[in-house]
């Protein structure tokens, strides 16, 4: 079988709301760099493909309660802080398309790609909570019961990604020439206006950041619904989905492939990763017992932790069985959400990874340098390079830069 890809979704003290109470948790350090550096280094020691970092423009409803973790750092800056202190692991922070400027968002990720030498991605997120809109204050929140209004948010996010992608391409790779003879630092015929004009914003370009090492950093999105599958199919390299079981996984992969065809992309271009919350067995305590204990610590008796993603509880071997079986449904990787940090992350690297390795399903060393390479994605040429070359080949005198229409 083809080896699997494994990513880790980092958020606070872990995905279970009581995770911060665990004996090994470091809740008072959630806002320190050391905490994040340790987690990402640990994931890197386990040879994992990449980490994602959650974010939003408000505090999620749960965290208004002092029984839960309150507060969160900016994900992009957290990823940048970790980047120089890691070598191989991919770094994929969340960016909220609804409330950010695509120009800023694109240059931040391009810069993350420079500081990490080709390990950057972005997880693009749509925001619909009224509380997020109130914090930004620029416009009124949509009615989320109205499919059209929700659709508009996803269209806006698709435009946001399109602008980022154009900006990343807006400098050709060899635009910097440092030609002392003519005094020119760049060849400006290789730096392009993107001239994006859409319903939500228009962006002239070019980027202020030269083309990043990967050319195109990796774009990801979490999707549960049709609108989101379409966004992913139009815009993303990886879609994170939340199947309940293997059959559901096959069904969702089918939906993604349909949306992909609709968007005019090649079948299979979008990598489908399944999100899974994991409570892994630890020495002296089963995953199920930990889960029950965390539930009890979190509040009223009988309340069980629930998630949008399926929850796996048990041994590394059991989890490995599930990962292998969903692979047949077209899942090419997994984004594991550790229920508690660092315990579940430690269990993933110490138990699950060796289990998968012994089955030939996971790498034994990092072979590739960039995140794109690791995911089997080509480094595309700048979309403007071919246009410029074609123009030159036909002998046209049109200049692709400077043509301020």
């Amino acid at each position, binding site marked *: 079988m083809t080896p699997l890809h494994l990513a880790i979704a980092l958020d606070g003290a872990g995905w279970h709301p009581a995770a911060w109470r665990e004996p090994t948790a470091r809740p008072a350090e959630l806002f320190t760099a050391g905490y994040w550096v340790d987690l990402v280094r640990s994931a890197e020691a386990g040879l994992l493909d990449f980490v994602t970092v959650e974010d939003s423009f408000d505090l999620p409803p749960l965290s208004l309660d002092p029984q839960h973790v*309150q507060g969160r750092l900016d994900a992009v800056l957290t990823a940048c802080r970790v980047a120089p202190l890691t070598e191989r692991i991919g770094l994929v922070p969340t960016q909220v398309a609804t409330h950010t400027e695509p*120009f800023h968002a694109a240059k931040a990720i391009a810069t993350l790609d*420079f500081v990490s030498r080709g390990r950057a991605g972005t997880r693009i997120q749509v925001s619909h909570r009224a509380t997020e809109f109130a914090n930004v204050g620029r416009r009124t929140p949509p009615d989320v019961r109205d499919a059209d209004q929700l659709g508009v948010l996803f269209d806006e996010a698709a435009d946001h990604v399109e602008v980022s992608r154009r900006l990343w391409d807006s400098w050709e790779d060899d635009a910097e020439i440092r030609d002392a003879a003519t005094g020119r630092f760049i060849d400006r015929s290789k730096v392009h206006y993107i001239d994006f004009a859409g319903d939500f914003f228009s962006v002239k370009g070019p980027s202020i*950041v030269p083309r990043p090492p990967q050319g195109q950093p990796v774009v990801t999105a979490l999707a549960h619904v049709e609108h989101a599958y379409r966004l992913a199919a139009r815009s993303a390299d990886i879609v994170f989905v939340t199947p309940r079981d293997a059959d559901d996984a096959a069904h969702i992969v089918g939906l993604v492939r349909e949306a992909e065809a609709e968007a005019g992309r090649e079948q299979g271009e979008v990598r489908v990763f399944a999100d899974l919350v994991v409570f892994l067995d630890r020495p002296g305590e089963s995953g199920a017992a930990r889960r029950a204990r965390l539930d009890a610590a979190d509040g009223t008796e009988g309340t069980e932790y629930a998630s949008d993603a399926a929850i796996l509880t048990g041994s590394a071997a059991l989890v490995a069985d599930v990962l292998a079986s969903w692979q047949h449904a077209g899942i090419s990787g997994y984004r594991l959400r550790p229920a508690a940090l660092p315990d579940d992350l430690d269990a993933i690297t110490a138990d699950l990874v060796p289990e998968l390795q012994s089955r030939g399903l996971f790498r034994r060393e990092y072979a590739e340098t960039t995140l794109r390479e690791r995911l089997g994605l080509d480094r595309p040429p700048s979309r403007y390079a071919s246009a410029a070359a074609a123009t030159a080949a036909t002998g046209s005198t049109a200049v692709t830069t400077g043509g301020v229409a």
Partner: protein
Amino acid sequence: MSRPRKQIHLAAHFPGVNNTTVWSDPRSGSHIDFDSFRRFAQVAERAKFDFLFLAEGLRLREQNGRIYDLDVVGRPDTFAVLAALAGVTDRLGLAGTINSTFNEPFEVARQFATLDHLSAGRAAWNVVTSWDAFTGENFRRGGFLPQDQRYERAESFLDAAGVLFDSWAGVEVTADKAATFLGGVPGDGPGRYAVHDNHFDISGQFTVPQSPQGRPVIFQAGDSEQGREFAAASADAIFTRHGTLEAGQAFYADIKGRLGRFGRTHDQLLVLPAATFALGDTQEQAEENAADIRRRQVSGQTAIKLAEQLWNLDLSDHDPDGPVPTVDPVVGENTIARGRASVRQHTDPRETAQKWRDLAAEKGLSLRGVVIEMSARQTFVGTPERVADLIDEYVQAHASDGFILVPHITPDGLADFADSVVPILQERGVFRTEYTGTTLREHLGLALPANTKKAVAS
């Protein structure tokens, strides 16, 4: 010598997008790879500098309707680089320019509060306002505000960010595992805030607990009347550029004199001019070195382009080694060069052009020669001893509280200064030999904002 000596503050500006950065020098490295920023920051930290400063650009410069290609073009995102630098330095302050026109307060406050946490209290924000419709073409807002409203928005922006920074006041990250996540939670939850004024209508809960410095150190750049008032009211430090000791002293007295009206004291606002330097073993060598740097900063092509910015005319047919143009500059709103703050400094272009002609006649200079003379920016030229003397003199004579040094080579141009001038200042007891604090506020001698409690791990 018995009077107490003021302590000097030193900072370093990463050489950037302007003709003073000599990219054609063989020692010039990448201006974009992170390794350049790391090396630059580590030299500054080795020399015990207060902070590193990064400028911001939001659109590539143009001249004659085309992207300007003679200077360094392109740079990374300010926040992203500063956050990464926090990982490879321990004490150095990390200051960045972030404009208040093409951002929202909630987002910027989140980013600076995060940067302050991730650097354990080393963040600083240079608040700028002066961006135009040309830059606005890269943003949703799609435009700009008239000059007066820009400062008004900047003040509102800074006030709103201040409300957000303070919104967790009194809340410590204590995480009592048996009880609640945060200790001492006030009434209706940490981070609760509301801002309603002419520019912003926002409310809710701020996402980032109070950072180690409470608020980032606030810098203001600019020399206008509005800029001076803004700085006196709200900033911790002001960037300036004044040619002579006397001009520096006049500015220093003016800006410090304004503080009382805002209920602030003399030591609550630092004056930190940008400065360049050229060193040599002898004064003659240093001057030769300075002249050589100027010639490389102003090539023939660059001289023409800089002249075009003043004349507001296409002068591409003009010989840089020939005379200063005799035609008058075109005065008007539309400038041939876009995305440059410096163009607006030519307040009376016709008068300036006449000054250039007079200088050419007096000294027998070509156009390029005049441009070199007029744009020369070496503040400090001399042996390390001499440069240390000058810096000390400016600070002791109240022309500044220190300097932000801008080397002309990326990224290693600071090393000479760090290795030769800094030890002399240290020997004289006017510059630290070790960091005594951990935060930038401590380096700068600025008190923590009153309501700040440091996050305490337990």
